[in-house]
């Protein structure tokens, strides 16, 4: 049974090029909107500043991920080789002077842990993977992965108003302005 009650998600407007989107994004930012987003088929450089997005904090996670890898590798090799099961082979000692022989593994695990922290950190920060999203109810959003440039202003934004926001998007050069309704599925 389909319910006829729909919730307004927001307004979606298309812009003709990356530079038009860039200029419009600056205006949306300056108008004081908070809950809004741009949709582009490729990363548009400079759009972060135009939207007022801060630099991603991902590197901090990755630093500690890498550090964890480094310490793990050191403990794994040192404790097993020097502590639990010292083997004297290849004329290499089993004491603190063995540590240089562990450098390759320390390096590899640092990279391994950092790489996976990057992946999962990215997914966490972007709240992906996600099965569905209200924006997919739009009839034109599929073009955002092809050649469309969109700005979307959410209804949750305190400055949002049904008429005013539509007029504002029109004013900054948006075309194909669409009211996206979340049908709750």
């Amino acid at each position, binding site marked *: 049974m389909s319910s006829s009650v729909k919730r307004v998600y927001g307004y979606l407007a298309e812009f003709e090029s990356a530079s038009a989107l860039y200029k419009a994004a600056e205006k949306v930012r300056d108008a004081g909107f908070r809950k809004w*987003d741009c949709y*582009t088929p490729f990363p*548009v450089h400079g759009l972060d500043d135009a*939207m007022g997005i801060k630099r991603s904090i991902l590197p901090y996670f990755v630093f500690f991920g890498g550090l964890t890898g480094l310490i793990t590798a050191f403990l794994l090799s040192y404790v097993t080789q020097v502590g*639990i099961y010292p083997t004297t082979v290849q004329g290499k000692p089993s004491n603190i002077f063995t540590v240089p022989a562990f450098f390759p593994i320390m390096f590899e695990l640092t990279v391994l842990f950092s790489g996976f922290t*990057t992946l999962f950190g990215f997914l966490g920060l972007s709240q992906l*993977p996600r099965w569905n999203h209200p924006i997919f109810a739009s009839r034109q959003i599929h073009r955002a992965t*092809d050649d469309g440039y969109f700005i979307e202003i959410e209804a949750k934004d305190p400055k949002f108003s049904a008429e005013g926001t539509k007029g504002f998007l029109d004013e900054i050069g948006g075309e194909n302005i669409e009211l996206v309704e979340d049908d709750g599925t």
Partner: protein
Amino acid sequence: MADTATKTTSETSTPREVKIPVLERETLVLNKRSYHWITERVCGVIENKQPAFWWQLFIPCAIMAAIGVGGGLIYLVSTGVGVWGNTNRVMWGWPIVNFVFWIGIGHAGTLISAILFLTRQNWRTSINRAAEAMTIFAVVCAGIFPAFHVGRVWMAWYLAPIPNANAIWQNFKSPLLWDVFAVSTYFSISLVFWFLGMVPDLATIRDRCKRGVKKLLYGIFSLGWRGSNRHWSHYEMAYLLLAALSTPLVLSVHSVVSFDFATSVVPGWHTTIFPPYFVAGAIFGGFAMVLTIMIPARFIYGLGDMITMKHIDNMAKIILLTGTIVGYAYLMELFVAFYSGAKYEMAAFTYRITGPYWWAYVAMMSCNVLSPQLFWFKWCRENLWVVMGVCMAVNAGMWFERFVIIVTTLARDFMPANWKYYNPSWVDIILFLGTIGLFAALFLLFLRFLPCINIAEVKWAKKESDVHYDDKQQHPDEGTVVEAAYQQEVEKGTAEV
């Protein structure tokens, strides 16, 4: 007299501005193709019916993989590793030759996606995806050999540092264990890099699919990507970080592989030149393989506007550079053997060149050092038949390099009673041919189901993608379209020649 002459010249000639001719930057997407065209063309490779070519290549490759790798390994495991041609001295033989060969090929992908990304070589955008896929498949092929070379493959888990009943731990001081960590890290990180780079393009394909299983699967693997700039912001940071992590990684992997040889006290192996020599060789062989598979794919699927002659030219130049480095390493190895005065070192190299394996040495030298020298000539880099020929020669030559290093060195050790000519068995041969089939079959499946060109990045590399593309007035110093005054004059025909 001289004074007056100087004076008159300075009076008559007006001080002229020094004009520096600006080389035109080649466009990366030819014929002013639109964004939509790029999407259509790359997705078309997947969505349209495959050309007959695809089946004609895929079926033999799949059969080769099934008989060679499948059948070969079943026979090997059920009988024992004695069916390989390995002998008491040449215990590494073909399996390790093939391992080093494949792992070397796997280097170009990450080089293109990481090092060329950090050095802002935008031409990488149209070839990185296929090169990364090639990396993954080459590492898959490489991994088969050491896993089965351990003898009893069901005990291969002893390589992993997990506690076991005998309380034995791995020898972390051994280069062979370093190799386990290096190769498995390389495989994992390359896979993450490849997958993360593909997420936006998988979303593109998802958005073009009608409902059904295809849409579901592309939907799952695209993770719900919607092109949001708040995501792009983190995505680009993640990509940059992975590139920065992969750059030392790609250089480390073949260095660690070379440690397997260099840290052993065997004449011909015990040299400090090995790590850089192996890395240069790996990049060299990898680029040759990228071209070997990209030139036919470009032709079959009509991707010529994205993978342009400029791309092929650049790759040919990298092959020339790395091939020359490899040539230098070969010669330096000989010189150091001579200069060291070490009797056994000299004997090992004399044996390599003049012994019964001279043919392998000649093949290595002519394929790896001489054939890339053709790329000094522009017409050779522009003629695709020549490029393909050189790449094939390099592919073969890099295999011979590993054969020369491993087999000739091991065939004559310190005990003359052990000296024997090494011959591979038929199992060695079908297993190697099988991995070639497996590699090709996996690559064909990749072309069939995944976007073979990085759609988002190729779009990004277009001039129009710059946000200051249309306002030269406000941002004369930024953007990609500001042309030098001299260039404009050249176009108008008013420049002084």
